């Protein structure tokens, strides 16, 4: 290896290290300051405390926001996995006029800013007399999360061997029984993965929720309002909880995805 090549190599490696520092230092700052016994989320270090986490339990608005996030997340997961799977069956198994258009519309939310979805539904829901709140938030978030579920489930369904379903029917199963007992179980890993993604996207969502949540709050909305009211290490403690939940779910999804990839 020539000296120039060696220099280039070291520079490349140094860049990679710098990138990781850039990625992690801000998160490390947030997490460290959640344990600092100082009234402001700043250094110097004044000793270790879990006091800021205890304050989470004493804040009814925050607890309500977390509860709302979980309820909305579960609602979105149920709705998105159901509708997304039905749409996947429709698009993978059937030919019908207008299929191309339906497919394009089904994926269109993926290339639209979330605020547009939120605003258009705010306008529409107010027309039909549906007040903003948790229900409108579930519908609004599902409008684009279904598209993600569709992509994940359709990819798996395409690989499924239809002969298995036909065999079940030859053995006396009705078509519905064959789907229920043979196809859906084999789709299970994809359904679970898409469910995790749906919950995560919902739990994380801000842009669409902002316009549809009304007087309630989800966790991201609550954090945003709290920051506007003033900095406190309590927000750091909430952030730590938030990071643990989303990273945990994210890693679970990644493990599932890798297992799926190994099977396929």
């Amino acid at each position, binding site marked *: 290896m020539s000296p120039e090549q060696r220099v280039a190599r070291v520079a490349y490696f140094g860049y990679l290290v710098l*990138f990781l520092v850039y990625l992690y230092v801000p998160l490390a700052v947030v997490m460290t300051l959640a344990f600092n016994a100082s009234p402001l989320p700043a250094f110097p270090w004044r000793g270790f405390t879990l006091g800021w986490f205890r304050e989470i339990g004493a804040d009814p608005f925050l607890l309500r926001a977390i509860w709302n996030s979980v309820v909305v997340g579960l609602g979105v997961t149920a709705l998105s996995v159901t509708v997304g799977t039905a749409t996947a069956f429709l698009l993978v198994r059937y030919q019908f006029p207008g299929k191309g258009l339906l497919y*394009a519309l089904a994926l269109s939310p993926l290339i639209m800013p979330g605020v*547009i979805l939120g605003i258009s539904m705010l306008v529409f829901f107010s027309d039909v007399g549906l007040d903003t709140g948790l229900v409108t938030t579930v519908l609004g978030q599902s*409008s684009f999360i279904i598209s993600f579920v569709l992509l994940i489930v359709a990819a798996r369904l395409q690989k499924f061997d239809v002969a298995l379903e036909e065999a079940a029917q030859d053995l006396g199963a009705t078509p519905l029984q064959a789907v229920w007992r043979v196809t859906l179980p084999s789709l299970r890993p994809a359904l679970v993965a898409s469910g995790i993604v749906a919950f995560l996207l919902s739990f994380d969502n801000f842009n669409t929720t902002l316009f549809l949540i009304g007087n309630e709050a989800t966790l991201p909305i609550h954090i945003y309002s709290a920051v506007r009211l003033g900095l406190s290490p309590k927000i750091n403690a909430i*952030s730590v909880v938030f*990071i643990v939940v989303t990273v945990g779910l994210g890693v679970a999804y990644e493990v599932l995805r890798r297992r799926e990839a190994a099977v396929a």
Partner: protein
Amino acid sequence: MAPRRALPWLLVPPLLWIGGLLVVPQLRMLELSFRRKLPLAQLGGPEDVYTAENYLRFAENPLYWKVFVKTVLSAVVITAVAFLIAFPIAYFLAKVARGRWATRLFLAIVVPFWVNEIVRTFAWLLILTEQGVLNQMLVALGFVQTPVSYLYTEGAVILGMAYAYMLFMLFPLYASLENLDFSLVEAAQDLGAGWTRVLRHIILPHCVPGAVAGSIMVFMLAVGTYVVPAMLGGKGAIWFVQLIYARFYDALNWNLGSAFAFSLLVLSLGFVAGMLRLFRLSMGRVLQT
């Protein structure tokens, strides 16, 4: 195989979703943007006609369109910065790192990807604020005497966004570089091509679908964000979505707000169509990455 009888039933959920949550609301938003804001009593009266007034107001008021143009240009800058920073990392991850190290590095990069945008922005708020980490470091090292606030500037907003959306560029790039056949690179090098030529004629053309997918994601997130400029920009850097939000919640002019929102939608779809045409790609090809 697929029984025809089931077709009508299977059509119901997708049609309710696409019709009720996407098509009808957006058409309604479009319709509202072409109507005047009127007091309740005058709705349906002679004043209640279709007009392009809202769009004209948008075009005539520099306070409005300057924010729009600035938002778009900043989003382009953020997309370019994200590509330049992410490309060497994506290449390293896909082609240089091997075996166990590649898996570990991938995990190390994917974990921050799952952290919420607001938390990431909050992190930069703590770093850039007057009593923040950056100032404490600079003062301690003697680079500055008195702390300055880096917040509430365009620079802070762009930095925060590049950070928040970086990984949406990195992963599509990584996916498209991963299936690059390295023997092509070796063959070019055997034939005497230097690194710059290999990069220009083999590697970059190969990662175009990933770069386009990443650019669409980053541009869309940057142009449509509310949180990052609201937290880091304050009054010093207003973003277009904040203007829209203010029409809906402060000025209560939904008609003008809808016109703003529809303009943003057209811009976003225009960006996607432009990118696909420029690089002669189909949406399906981009979605694969």
